[in-house]
């Protein structure tokens, strides 16, 4: 399982400037959440990460406190240029959107009541939810290479979806509990393959 860190078809950022600009670009496309865009840009367009690596980084970002996409930008930047890269990527993610959101706050006071504005926000919100679900389906292809086996993989994903999405249990309980079960099963499986 010791896949090379950087397979031949994979690219990497040339500089901190490229990191900053790439993360600025993807942040600015992220209405209602950046994760879907991050997957598209980092995996499919830039090829800095494979699907599997993206899921790995996302997994760590989700179990740690802090905004997932900010954690992802820090980790990806750090991989290539250390602390400087981490700051460049995070700054790219935050700086321009911060200016925009504060400008939007000033505008919002004036236009929030317009039905067209409310309607646009409603439509964009529905699409944003679809983008997240579609991204989950896209990343689901990692089932094919998982050492867990298809049945266990599907059971873990379905249980997480049901407990968080349907039953609405708190994340702080579900994540450690299901994570522990899934990782114990994975421990058993990766050991069996040695």
């Amino acid at each position: 399982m010791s896949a090379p860190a950087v397979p031949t078809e994979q690219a990497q950022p040339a500089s901190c400037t490229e990191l900053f600009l790439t993360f600025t670009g993807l942040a600015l496309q992220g209405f209602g959440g950046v994760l879907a865009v991050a997957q598209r840009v980092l995996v499919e367009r830039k090829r800095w990460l494979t699907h599997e690596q993206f899921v790995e980084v996302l997994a760590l970002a989700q179990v740690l406190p802090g905004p997932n996409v900010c954690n992802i930008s820090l980790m990806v930047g750090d991989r290539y240029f250390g602390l400087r890269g981490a700051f460049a990527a995070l700054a790219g993610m935050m700086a321009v959107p911060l200016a925009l959101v504060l400008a939007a706050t000033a505008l919002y006071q004036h236009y929030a009541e317009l039905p067209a504005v409310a309607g646009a926000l409603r439509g964009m919100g529905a699409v944003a939810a679809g983008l997240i679900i579609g991204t989950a389906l896209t990343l689901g292809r990692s089932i094919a290479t998982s050492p867990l086996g298809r049945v266990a993989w599907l059971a873990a994903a379905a249980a997480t979806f049901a407990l968080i999405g349907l039953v609405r249990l708190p994340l702080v309980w579900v994540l450690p509990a299901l994570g522990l079960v899934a990782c114990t099963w994975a421990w058993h499986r990766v050991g069996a393959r040695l």
Partner: protein
Amino acid sequence: MTALSPVQWWDLLAHFLMLSLLAVGGAVTVVPDMHRYLVGQTGLLNDAQFNAAIAIAQASPGPNVLFVAVMGWQAAGWLGALATLLGIMLPSATLALAASRWGQARAEWRAMRAFRAGMAPVTIGLLAATGWILVGDAPSWRLALLTAASALLVWRTRLHLLWLIAAGAVLGTTGLV
């Protein structure tokens, strides 16, 4: 906007530093406590300002955590935005970097491979649940259809995501959804 005393500044920063380490799943998960602190305990914001901050950040491009900066800005101007954003980011960012480096250095350990393999389906299930929750409790069938169509297009095509967002805005503005 209120003029804060040094003690209040420190209290604001310290509170967000503390929330940062509790925000597993993103800053949204500690919104209830932010409300308790900013609206209830300190009175720095009123309810309308608090809700507007979240709505604005969701409609703007970029990470949703920026709603924290909007709250700081509404409460105490630029320095307020700096205090809340720095507070919510600094501890979690430090932890993320440390954990990422620790894990990378031990990538071949059996425990790390088990973690990566075991957390992948949980991560993806959580992502799907996040989208599901964003749909809301009782969307109109048109909104639900728009969500389903977006999910399908993201999954099956390489259509640029901005087209989808723009389509949602147009459909919403014209009152079709």
